[in-house]
């Protein structure tokens, strides 16, 4: 099979994407497929047309590749592709939209408020900040509305720290959310097809908060897979993750990040196209389930929707 591997692009997560894609390309060759690597730029459509692949493996993270943009082009060109569809990607990338969907579907997610820049610049939203702080409590979390990894995610431990945290978050997007901080264990559930893979727990190395850099570096964060949870907790986490996956309309594969606090599991976000690097969580979870990286790639390909009429 001829597989176009879409990677890179202009996203801030370009570097991670290139590492994910390199592994995928390699696995494809081992599996006997023909891999055509395409760094997504102005030539994307032309290159897809020229190579006319049987299927596209989307190994892009962040804007352009994980938000439905590339998927939309693939749909127009009639090329089947891996991972969630246009709408699901769009919803997952926009944390605010995702949380609204989750809440609507009864999937627990921490309380939040969302603002766009106009609200502050033109509508005096700053006046609402004290109220909002009271409602969410401190510390609270400030996140860019869209964007992956931990880029721009700040932690405000007092009202005085909120404005600078907002300035940082607005560096990534024109919409931000302020979210209630939930203390608990950091868990990730990857879903392959409709099957949950073993739960991964991220345990920050002493003192280190689990941050963007730690995420991609060996030795900075320890991962336990399967996470040491009692059966009831594991069941609750898995059920919640699957509910989130379904509510957002994901398909193929995705990764649900949750926090397990005193009030049970809550969904923080869903990564439509999670990382596939050496240290990424999805491959680790697959491995714990006895699925090798090659098998994982093959399964993801099989899950790519085929055109209705051959």
């Amino acid at each position, binding site marked *: 099979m001829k597989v176009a591997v879409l990677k890179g692009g*202009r996203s*801030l997560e*370009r*570097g991670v994407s*290139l590492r994910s894609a390199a*592994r995928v390309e*390699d696995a494809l*060759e*081992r599996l006997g497929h023909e891999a055509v690597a395409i760094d997504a730029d102005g030539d994307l459509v032309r290159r897809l047309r020229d190579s006319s692949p049987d299927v596209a493996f989307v190994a892009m993270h962040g804007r352009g590749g994980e938000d439905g943009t590339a998927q939309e082009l693939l749909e127009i060109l009639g090329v089947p592709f891996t991972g969630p569809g246009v709408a699901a990607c769009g919803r997952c990338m926009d944390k605010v939209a995702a949380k609204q969907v989750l809440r609507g579907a009864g999937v627990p997610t921490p309380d939040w408020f969302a603002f766009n*820049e106009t609200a*502050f*610049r033109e509508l*005096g939203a*700053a*006046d609402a*900040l*004290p109220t909002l*702080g009271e409602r969410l409590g401190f*510390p609270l*979390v400030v996140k860019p509305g869209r964007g992956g*990894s*931990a*880029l*721009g995610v*700040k*932690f*405000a*431990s*007092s*009202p*005085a*720290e*909120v*404005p*600078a*945290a*907002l*300035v*940082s978050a607005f*560096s*990534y997007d024109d919409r931000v959310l302020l979210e209630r901080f939930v*203390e608990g264990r*950091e868990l990730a559930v990857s879903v392959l097809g409709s099957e949950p893979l073993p739960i991964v727990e991220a345990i920050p190395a002493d003192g*280190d*908060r*689990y*941050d*963007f*850099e730690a995420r*991609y*570096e*060996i030795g*900075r964060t320890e991962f336990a897979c399967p996470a040491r949870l009692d059966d009831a907790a594991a069941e609750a986490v898995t059920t919640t993750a699957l509910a989130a996956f379904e509510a957002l309309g994901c398909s193929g594969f995705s990764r649900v*990040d949750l926090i397990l606090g005193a009030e049970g599991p809550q969904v*923080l976000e869903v990564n439509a196209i999670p990382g596939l690097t*050496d240290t990424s969580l999805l491959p*680790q979870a697959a*491995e714990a389930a006895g699925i*090798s990286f*090659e098998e994982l790639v093959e399964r993801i390909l099989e899950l790519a929707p085929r055109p209705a009429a051959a």
Partner: protein
Amino acid sequence: MVEPPHRRRAHTRTRDLERYAGLFAERTGVMRSSAMRDLMAITARPEVISLAGGLPDTSTFPAGTFAAQMTRIAQESTAEALQYGPTEGFEETVDCILEVMGAEGMLPDPDDVIVTTGGQQAIDLVSKTLVDPGDVVICEAPTYPGAVPVFCSYQAEVVQIDCDEDGMRIEELEAVLAGLDAEGRRPKFVYTVPSFQNPAGVTLSLERRRRLVELARQRELLVVEDNPYGLLRFSGDPLPPLYQLDGGDFVIYIGTFSKILSPGIRLGWAVAPPPVMEKIVLGKQAADLCTSTLTQHFVREYFAEGRWREYIADLIGIYHGRRDVMVGALREHFPAEATWTEPEGGLFIWATLPEYIDTGDLLAKALREDVAFVPGQAAYADESRGRNSMRLNFSGVGEDEIREGIRRIGAAVGEQVELYQALTGEYAQGSSHPGMPGREAEDMPGIDATKPSAGPGRYLTSPGPAEGPADHGEGGDVLPFRKESA
């Protein structure tokens, strides 16, 4: 080109990672990839105007000269140029080094000199020779971003001394030394880039140079003087290197051909007193036996031609023009709240923004406009510092690009300043201006009106323990050295 035969390694599995991780030396735990590595990957895209590099301009080096010299090496010295050489380097290379050092008034004993694989290796060898885990190494704040990983890889405890427009604050150094004395600790060395410092662009004043050398003598303290840019002075009077003031007893000197000829040839050097040099030579032997003989031949040929000073003069002309353009653009496009240094030489300007701006996040915004710089945190061992500063390089790109690059960064900064003002108009007003009573501070319990408002704590999808962000520590990180306004 035919693809050479190769195999692809099987995928690393979790247990492989664990197996290797179990074998890693303890020091690898502190060997971190340089900060913001992934963001920096994007700066390499061709459409990005990168003010992030530290590159000298090699485009004006005459190709004809290069070709003629390499041809001469091939014709006259092929066997030697392709052979191993002495660990200390060729005598002829040392002669070139003496010429360069002589140009700044230094007169070292040739036996005290070792040729190294770039100045970077000299920093590594000096650290390897002197630093045990837990030893204190003192350097400037901010310091050369490439030195931090070296010190960390030898598990040094890095103590940084703030700079102002006259370089490292020696009074602060004395206070730190006294504090260490009280703990019964002695720093292994003080690392400094005294002239046109990377990244701050500042130069240690003559008075402070004298005082530092005096301190070194009194306390028998080693000073490592890293001087890649000393000859690249555009304005002001030359200052004597620490090595010259000290005579080479307590100052270990590090030099390089990278900024006056080529970084690609990887030729630097160290000058140290004989007992130290003996260990450095052994360390060099263990590291790589000898420095490239081929490029040492190139330097020899290049210096034999006798035009090296003219080439430096050309570079100075180019860099001077570019610095002026950058300073002009900063005045035009950076908001009134920003400050920056105005170096008299070298390659870098250090700009400092209001403390509520995190330059790591600003870089993400700037990259959307296809422009890049180095976030200030790279210049600190404690990554919570330097968060509102940035290093801007003016040697590696042309004047038009500098102008446009600064315009774009200035626009991004301006938007952040405006947003912050909108945010703080009625909220937490006092917090960003220590000393000013914040109205909200009285109304809302829990606001510490004197605390810096920038929250450096980073955290991901879910936080760790409910603690506040890391403390800013010393407070006034690098203070704006010189305020330039339009």
